[in-house]
């Protein structure tokens, strides 16, 4: 147990040191060169504002995170379902996947104003929709790759046991695709926060985090804008971390996690 804690400390120690040094350096440079607030506020000021505005910021953060989470859930579910359909009906995949790959390469966020028009500026669903579209393609592409890049002999072996298609999916293709699927979900977790925040930049209720950041910077309340950005970053990192933790649980058998001693 203490050995685990020690190893954790050794693994994370350098990153923590860099983080603290970075904050200290930021503060020192802003003070030393007398940088104006609108360019870059001091970390201590941001922390102060964060504390003073904690209640409204927290509610804004939760509001926006719910949009991100909703979009993530819708987009990822549809992505996984489509991947299953395309993996089962290869001709459909052949017909549609070139477009999915192309769609994944275009800046989908550019559609955000259109989605606001479609679903209503103040309707959280307009932000969920943009987050969902952003999540859909990486999840689809990665999951499909996982479902179809299974060792052919693993499939042959199942056929030798007279296993049917459903059984092959359940016992081989789906478990084998999990590491790929989670790679897509991790990308999607980040994109969903971006989608929700940027969607709000194009208009939304004042209770939303993106609108808070936008208004604060428009009215020269730069420390509040930065406090909002810090909160958005925290939600993004925590969401990514939660998906990564779920991955560890679901794919603990994956040899690529072999950073622990077993014997």
């Amino acid at each position, binding site marked *: 147990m203490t050995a685990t804690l020690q190893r954790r400390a050794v693994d994370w120690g350098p990153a923590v040191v860099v983080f603290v040094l970075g904050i200290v350096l930021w503060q020192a440079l802003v003070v030393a060169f007398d940088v104006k607030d609108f360019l870059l506020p001091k970390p201590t000021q941001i922390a102060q504002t964060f504390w003073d505005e904690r209640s409204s910021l927290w509610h804004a953060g939760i509001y926006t995170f719910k949009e991100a989470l909703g979009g993530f859930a819708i987009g990822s579910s549809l992505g996984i379902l489509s991947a299953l359909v395309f993996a089962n009906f290869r001709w459909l995949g052949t017909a549609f996947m070139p477009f999915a790959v192309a769609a994944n390469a275009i800046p989908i966020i550019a559609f955000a104003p259109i989605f606001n028009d479609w679903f209503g500026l103040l309707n959280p669903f307009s932000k969920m929709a943009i987050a969902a579209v952003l999540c859909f393609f990486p999840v689809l592409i990665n999951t499909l790759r996982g479902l179809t890049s299974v*060792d052919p*002999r*693993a499939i*042959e*072996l199942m*056929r*030798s*046991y*007279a*296993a049917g298609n459903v*059984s092959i999916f359940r*016992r*081989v293709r789906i*478990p*084998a695709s*999990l590491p790929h699927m989670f790679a897509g979900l991790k990308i999607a977790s980040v994109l969903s926060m971006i989608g929700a925040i940027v969607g709000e930049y194009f208009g939304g209720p004042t209770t939303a985090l993106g609108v808070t950041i936008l208004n604060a910077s428009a009215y020269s309340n730069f420390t509040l804008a930065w406090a909002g950005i810090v909160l958005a970053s925290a939600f993004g990192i925590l969401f990514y971390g939660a998906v990564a933790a779920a991955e560890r649980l679901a*794919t603990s*058998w*994956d*040899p690529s996690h*072999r950073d622990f001693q*077993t*014997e």
Partner: protein
Amino acid sequence: MNDRPAVAIQGLTKQFKAGVTALSGIDLEVQPREFVSLIGPSGCGKSTLLRIIGDLIEPSAGTVEVNGKTAHRARLDHDYGIVFQEAVLYDWRTVSKNIALPLELLRWSKEQRTTRVAELIGLVELEGFEDHHPWQLSGGMQQRVAIARALSFDPALLLMDEPFGALDEMTRERLNLELLRIWEASGSTIVFVTHSIPEAVFLSTRVVVMSARPGRVSAIVEVDLPYPRTARTREEPRFFELVTEVRERLAGSEVAV
């Protein structure tokens, strides 16, 4: 019932789409309880032949019967187990659950599966590794899991495609002895593809020598070494004579083509 051949192949031909003739005019019978090795140069279609027996590939012409049924029917009836050169274990399953997979598909109850897996773990001597994941095992141990899995549902026929080809010489010789012990204990018929002449002679009741492009049966060598065969068998003069005979047949088949 038991006088039916385990495998009966007549006039078998396999052409791939590219126009390559992998196998041509194969006639072969394997009797129950036999251990038959298929040996030949790379590209002689011996792995293809094994997959056709297992109904994993369709022949272009000719008939294949397993236990008196079509190969297709035999596959659906779980009449054979197969082992490849790589163990092809499922990473997300432990050793026990890999071995139990065919039994799950056959809808055995959990108690039946547990009992059977314990027997098989004993048979392939993997006690203590039941809950390990495949990547925690050496190559030789992984292959023993694959063999246990193929034997789990007690198939009458075992198809093996160079199962020890990726292992070092010492592990290979040890597993050869184990395989003979398992074969004698289980009473199954084995069709075994290999590149190694000594391995084929050491294990088999008969060695089928194949030639390449197109793959044909060019000779069949009866191995009259007595069972049980031991490490000593490899030192007997008769063993060397048979190895030489197979080698000459192989060389002859290559010159002829």
